[in-house]
């Protein structure tokens, strides 16, 4: 027997102790089981009984009570009278387990385990035998689920370079002995671990500061570094109740603290060379994770990933001290442990935790199992069958989009590479229209992010964004309605009614990315705003709900990045609740929603600085905000959501009929919300119809945007109808109510039929081609010099975000081709851009026949007038007089083009950059106050395109180098190192006088300013994340004051 070395230690009684039945001729080592308990449940007795029934003869049991609310001594004595009980004031597992350092004096091994672990009878013996056989310092058993012993929980553990744990076992994985086999592992959890007592003493026991989350990792890692082996012996089995969260309020593990402690352990025990890359990569990865967490609003799972790093970096000195200590004890190098580590654990974990739709789901495999299980269980339910059928129709209806890609019509412009989008975002000069210093839109970053997630496949990313709008929007409607009704079936019906609505189909047909994004994300915005507004009563509640508000702001920022008018949706929703208040009450709720919306908008604006500031200053250019359309819709069209090819016929009437039931028959809250939903719908309809009816000459946003609100109102009302049927109708005698319900059901079915009918073409009415494809030859025209294409016509069929003249004629400028997503969310119009509109106006009114001359200095080589969004799309008449005006221009030569597109080549075109011969420079007007007149009267003589890159061209000159970007003082040019004189040709462009021949380098000198603004934006986002983290941490910490951590 071991003897006590210190006065505080004591010899533990054991099965093999004096008075036991052990053979005195055989010296067997004593094992001291250290069971840490706190506020134990019924599982404690099971755990103790399992220890008592071990077949190992020399086992003593020490139960350390970590400050339970009630003294468990009596219960322990009842279950295992031989057990020694120590009560300590330390609340944590690690500190309590360290009691063994002072209490145990005669044991060779310590079996440290939780109080909710039930060991198989031979477990201790098997572990001990393996420890001797393999000369291991730490041995762990196979751990299975106590409730379902067939399910594996862990068979040893590993970590990745950032300390994220990995069991190698999929959730719910059945134990078929597939992991059996003794092997080295990085660490075993302290659920049950056999550790040599001398090693435990040498290591100083657990590092209490690593609890929760990393005390076992830390111990085993230090054991490893000290040269000890850590093994798992799967023949030894333990059943784990996983009762950490069942010990009273706040007993659940603190995820943030666990993340902090894991990173602390990594920072302490990793080698310096490893940390060189682990720290920056870990911080960057956590930053991305935090962004995604914020965007996906998984606040319940938000680990404040970035905050964990921040927390540790602030404790740099402590970490350094700990590293010094660890270095002293180190006997092996980091690389010797590399084989035991896992890779990509964090990514798998993130996907499992945040992409999966069910909180219980931890991996894709589990998603699959859950889905199969759910399908098996619910297939018989009609609602589930309906969802499945509609999902199938959705896939069928999207088949050509999924297989052939989304045509580049409207704002569905093609997405270039990730680097192209990011470099456009970082550029100090915005290459839209005639150029601008306005900040680039953050939507480009969003696109780049999404493209990155699909490994750079921009077309796939674009297709997914478009096609997934249906289910995403439907899920948003589900969440909103679920929050209102607290019931499943109404929420599902609302989701279906929303997804069935013609709005997204028409948005896809017309290529309206912003309204489509609003359709998809709008219900989430409203849901969060409503939830926040309903919770906020009193200062404390407000503080608690701060995270919700921040989430709203983040999601609103994300939505606004796609559609600048998104905040109006929330404001309109608030208005709907207030307008409904005289009828059903809830004015205060409306005010709270309004305040929430305003606050969320402020947060979104801050997160989108400086782009948002530029937009706020775009008052003179409402088209830049999306006010580009003059829809000619009559009342029936609006009510049927018939803003495009979808919605014709009776289908949309059916949805309205389905929505009417809750209004006609609902009672109580159902009636209240039905009223609000209908007011929402009416406002949405009115926002489209009133301008079309009373102000047809005023440009308004795309009708699908406001109709999204109406669609959501109709969908919620339809969902409430199900609730009404269940609560207010079912079980009553057959009568009028049942008839109304039948009509509603038929209406819903008609809506389904409409959806099904539109699925026939496989692309939801989108054209089967696009103009960039038809005009692919433009790509090769770049060799003749840089050029622009002027797209002119009805704004509804123009690509990208058109400018809109006073008469409603739209125009867009694209560069060196048909344009791509880099030219989306164009900069607000400035004076130079307005010159294009002036020229078109003059031509349309017959006041000039030299449009080509007017736009030649803008390097407009082609003028395209589409009368369809793309080949095969529905025709849209061009503005009156425009075709004749273009046909009457003396300098526009008509080219062959597919049906629906009239294409002209400008015979007066001036490339960009181009050099005007020295002898002809006098003919170029400089600094003209009347650029239009100057362009009209000027016949620039010898002009040659400057070959090569503008920043490093082929030799050119001498002469005047024309650079057709809007004049800005930060443009400069050099030839052989000499800075050229900067002039203002035609009163708006840039020109540089080159007195000698040489390679020209044209540069924009305002790039540093842009970098500064990007830094400001990053700081704002970081500040936002810190606030989110602090808010989340504070919210979790507040109730924790009243409790102690559980073991």
């Amino acid at each position, binding site marked *: 027997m071991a003897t006590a070395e210190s006065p505080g230690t004591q010899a533990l009684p054991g099965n093999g102790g004096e008075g036991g039945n052990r053979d005195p001729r055989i010296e067997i080592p004593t094992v001291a089981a250290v069971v840490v308990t706190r506020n134990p449940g019924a599982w404690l007795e099971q755990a103790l009984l399992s220890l008592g029934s071990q077949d190992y003869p020399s086992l003593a049991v020490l139960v350390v009570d970590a400050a339970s609310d009630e003294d468990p001594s009596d219960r322990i004595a009842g279950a295992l009278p031989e057990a020694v009980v120590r009560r300590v004031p330390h609340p944590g597992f690690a500190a309590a387990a360290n009691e063994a350092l002072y209490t145990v004096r005669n044991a060779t091994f310590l079996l440290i385990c939780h109080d909710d672990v039930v060991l198989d009878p031979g477990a201790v013996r098997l572990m001990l035998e393996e420890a001797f056989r393999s000369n291991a310092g730490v041995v762990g058993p196979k751990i299975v689920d106590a409730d379902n012993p067939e399910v594996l929980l862990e068979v040893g553990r590993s970590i990745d370079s950032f300390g994220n744990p990995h069991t190698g076992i999929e959730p719910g994985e059945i134990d078929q002995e597939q992991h059996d086999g003794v092997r080295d592992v990085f660490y075993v959890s302290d659920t049950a671990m056999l550790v040599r007592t001398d090693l435990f003493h040498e290591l100083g026991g657990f590092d209490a500061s690593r609890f929760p989350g990393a005390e076992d990792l830390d111990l085993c890692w230090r054991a490893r570094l000290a040269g000890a082996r850590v093994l798992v012996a799967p023949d030894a089995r333990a059943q784990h109740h996983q009762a950490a969260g069942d010990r009273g309020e706040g007993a659940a593990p603190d995820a943030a603290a666990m993340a902090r402690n894991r990173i602390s352990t990594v920072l302490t025990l990793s080698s310096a060379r490893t940390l060189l890359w682990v720290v920056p990569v870990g911080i960057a990865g956590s930053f991305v994770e935090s962004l995604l967490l914020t965007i996906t609003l998984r606040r319940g799972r938000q680990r404040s990933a970035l905050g964990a790093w921040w927390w540790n970096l602030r404790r740099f000195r402590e970490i350094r001290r700990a590293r010094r200590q660890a270095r002293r004890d180190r006997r092996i190098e980091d690389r010797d442990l590399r084989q035991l580590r896992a890779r990509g654990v964090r990514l798998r974990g993130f996907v499992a935790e945040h992409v999966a739709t069910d909180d219980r789901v931890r991996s894709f495999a589990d998603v699959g199992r859950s889905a199969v299980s759910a399908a098996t269980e619910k297939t018989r339910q009609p609602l589930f069958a309906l969802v499945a059928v509609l999902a199938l129709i959705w896939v069928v209806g999207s088949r050509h989009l999924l297989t052939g890609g989304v045509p580049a019509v409207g704002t569905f412009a093609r997405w270039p590479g990730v680097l192209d989008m990011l470099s456009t975002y970082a550029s100090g000069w915005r290459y839209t229209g005639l150029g601008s210093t306005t900040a680039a839109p953050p939507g480009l970053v969003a696109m780049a992010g999404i493209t990155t997630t699909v490994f750079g496949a921009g077309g796939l990313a674009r297709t997914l964004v478009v096609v997934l709008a249906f289910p995403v929007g439907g899920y948003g409607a589900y969440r909103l309605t679920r929050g209102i009704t607290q019931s499943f079936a109404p929420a599902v019906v609302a989701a279906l009614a929303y997804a069935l609505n013609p709005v997204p189909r028409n948005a896809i047909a017309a290529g309206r990315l912003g309204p489509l994004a609003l359709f998809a994300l709008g219900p989430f915005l409203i849901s969060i705003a409503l939830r926040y507004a309903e919770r906020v009563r009193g200062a404390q509640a407000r503080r608690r709900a701060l995270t919700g508000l921040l989430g709203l702001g983040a999601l609103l920022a994300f939505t606004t990045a796609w559609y600048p008018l998104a905040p109006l949706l929330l404001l309109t929703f608030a208005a709907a609740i207030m307008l409904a208040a005289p009828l059903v009450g*809830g004015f*205060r709720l409306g005010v709270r929603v309004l305040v929430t919306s305003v606050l969320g908008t402020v947060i979104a604006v801050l997160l989108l600085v400086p782009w948002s500031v530029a937009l706020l200053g775009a008052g003179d250019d409402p088209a830049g905000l999306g006010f580009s359309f003059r829809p000619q819709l009559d009342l029936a069209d609006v009510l049927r959501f018939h803003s495009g090819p979808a919605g014709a016929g009776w289908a949309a009437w059916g949805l309205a009929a389905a929505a009417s039931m809750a209004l006609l028959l609902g009672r109580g*809250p159902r009636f209240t919300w039905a009223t609000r939903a209908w007011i929402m719908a009416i406002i949405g309809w009115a926002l489209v119809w009133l301008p079309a009816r009373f102000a*047809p000459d005023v440009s308004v946003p795309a009708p699908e945007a406001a109709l999204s609100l109406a669609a959501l109102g109709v969908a919620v009302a339809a969902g409430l109808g199900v609730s009404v049927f269940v609560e207010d109708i079912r079980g009553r005698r057959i009568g009028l109510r049942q008839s109304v319900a039948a009509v509603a059901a038929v209406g819903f079915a008609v809506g389904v039929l409409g959806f099904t009918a539109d699925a026939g073409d496989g692309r939801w009415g989108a054209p089967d081609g696009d103009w960039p494809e038809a005009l692919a030859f433009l790509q090769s025209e770049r060799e003749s010099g840089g050029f622009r294409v002027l797209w002119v016509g009805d704004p509804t069929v123009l690509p990208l975000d058109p400018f809109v003249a006073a008469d409603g004629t739209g125009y867009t400028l694209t560069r060196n081709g048909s344009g791509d997503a880099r030219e989306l969310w164009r900069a607000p119009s400035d004076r130079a851009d307005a010159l294009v509109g002036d020229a078109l106006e003059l031509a349309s009114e017959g006041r000039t*026949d030299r449009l080509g001359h007017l736009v030649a200095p803008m390097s407009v080589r082609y003028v395209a007038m589409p009368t369809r969004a793309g080949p095969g799309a529905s025709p849209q008449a061009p503005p009156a007089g425009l075709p004749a005006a273009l*046909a009457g221009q*003396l300098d526009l*030569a008509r080219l062959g083009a597919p049906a629906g597109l009239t294409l002209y080549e400008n015979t007066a075109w001036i490339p960009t950059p181009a050099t005007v011969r020295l002898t002809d420079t006098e003919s170029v007007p400089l600094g003209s106050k009347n650029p239009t*007149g100057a362009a*009209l009267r000027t016949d620039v003589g010898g002009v040659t395109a400057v070959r090569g890159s503008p920043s490093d061209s082929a030799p050119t000159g001498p002469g005047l180098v024309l650079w057709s970007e809007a004049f800005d003082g930060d443009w400069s040019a050099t030839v052989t190192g000499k800075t050229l004189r900067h002039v203002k040709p035609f009163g708006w462009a840039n020109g540089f006088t080159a007195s000698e021949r040489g390679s020209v380098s044209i540069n924009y000198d305002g790039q540093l300013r842009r970098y500064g603004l990007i830094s400001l934006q990053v700081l704002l986002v970081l500040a936002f994340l810190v606030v989110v983290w602090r808010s989340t941490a504070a919210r979790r910490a507040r109730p924790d004051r009243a409790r102690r951590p559980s073991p």
Partner: protein
Amino acid sequence: MTAPPPAPGPAPRRPPPGRGDPPERRRLPVLIVVGVCVAIAAAFGLSGTDASTTPRAGNTIAAAVPTVAEPDSVSSTWYCAEGTGSPGGRADEAIIIANAGKAAARALVTVMPGGQDEPESRRVSVPRGGQVRVPVSSVLQTPEHPDDAGLLVGPGVVVEVFGGGSLVEHEIEGESDLAVGPCAREAGRDWYFAAGTTERGAEDNAALFNPFPDDAIVDLTFATDAGFIAPADLQALVVPQRSRVTVPVANFVRRQAQVALHAHVRTGRIVAEQSLNFTTENETRRGLTLSLGAPSPESSWSLPGVVPEDGASHAVLVANFDTSATEVEIEPRFDEASSTRPRPVPVGGRSVAVVDLASLGDSGAPFGFEVRTTRASPVVVEQLASWAPPAAATGSATTLASPVQSRGWVFAAGRLTPEGDAGVSVLNPGRKSATVRLLAYASGGADQPTSVGEMRVPARAQARFDLVELGVEPDQVVVVRADAPVIAARRIVGPTGASLALGVAEPDAG
């Protein structure tokens, strides 16, 4: 073991307003509100739009006849199709640029010779209130020449005037006659002419001018005494970019007394003019005519300025390009209001009716006339006049009647001679009398025009200003202003020949 009973808690709170059960009586107001919203919207939706669909008068005028460039125009472009650009040509052409705007204007006269030859331009300045005459040959001498298909290739002229208030006319001069008419403001896809003939001694030339940088493809068809003719050689006729092609109609339509022409452009746009050259072989007429085509048939046409005199003949030709027959009523308008009965004239499908105006003006007094269709098919109306001794001059003239009215008409005065007869006639087709003033800018140009004559024109009557009597000089720009919509036409008969022409309308005065 049984669960402990729930601890007593606070009494359930009363549901907040709007979240609890509302009384059933609240349903009615909600339904009323929703119903009223829908009803109001439906009422407005059914009542139609308030937006006026009536086109502006100015637009209507501009679509039918050449109009003076708007005062705020940056530039206006005029297209002059017919004429030759070499001395001694069949129709030696000169461009007349008049400026009735508020500032001096600059003009660029570009002669497009067609073929491989490059256009040539000349810049001229036009003083405010003045006019400039530019012979085409002074810009570019380019003889007209036949091509392989027997068509004549010659110069077309584009005149760009930088500044508002301008108008451009051109005159073509033959062996013994002069013809004047306004150039076109717009190219078009259809052009119609009623007064053509390929009778003996008549050279009917249709000039098709494509000033644009891409080729135009044109179909020419004819309504004749012998019926509808669509010569194969004149179908899908290519008018090359920036060139003028003249079709000698007689080469394709032989010996027809009445030949109405329709030029339809399949691709592109053109400007079409027609000239008639009556040679000595012609039994009844001598001289040269010039008309700009009508862009479309109309149901109502008016023209003033018919002056019955010895040696003169006036005919109105009514062309129906539709396949179905129609009928028109022709009614004379004299200086005094009179109650004449309109004369019905049947016009067969795709044919031309000729009415001798002498039969309408038995009294010998000057008169104008109105032509209205009484059936659905619109028509094109053109006057053909000729003078021979004992009249003051020898020559011929054609002009389309006007389908529109305007409060203002502008003319370049033209070649006035003391011994000749020159006048501007004004027809008031309205039901109220109109006060009409004749204004003229000072010779050589001036800031403001001065009134040189004023008269009251009764309803449905016409009046005539005698330019020679009023002392108007040939280089003056003349403006007709009325307080009601009228039609104004100029008639010059003198030693240099005879010409008839509508004025150039002021659309903003319409």
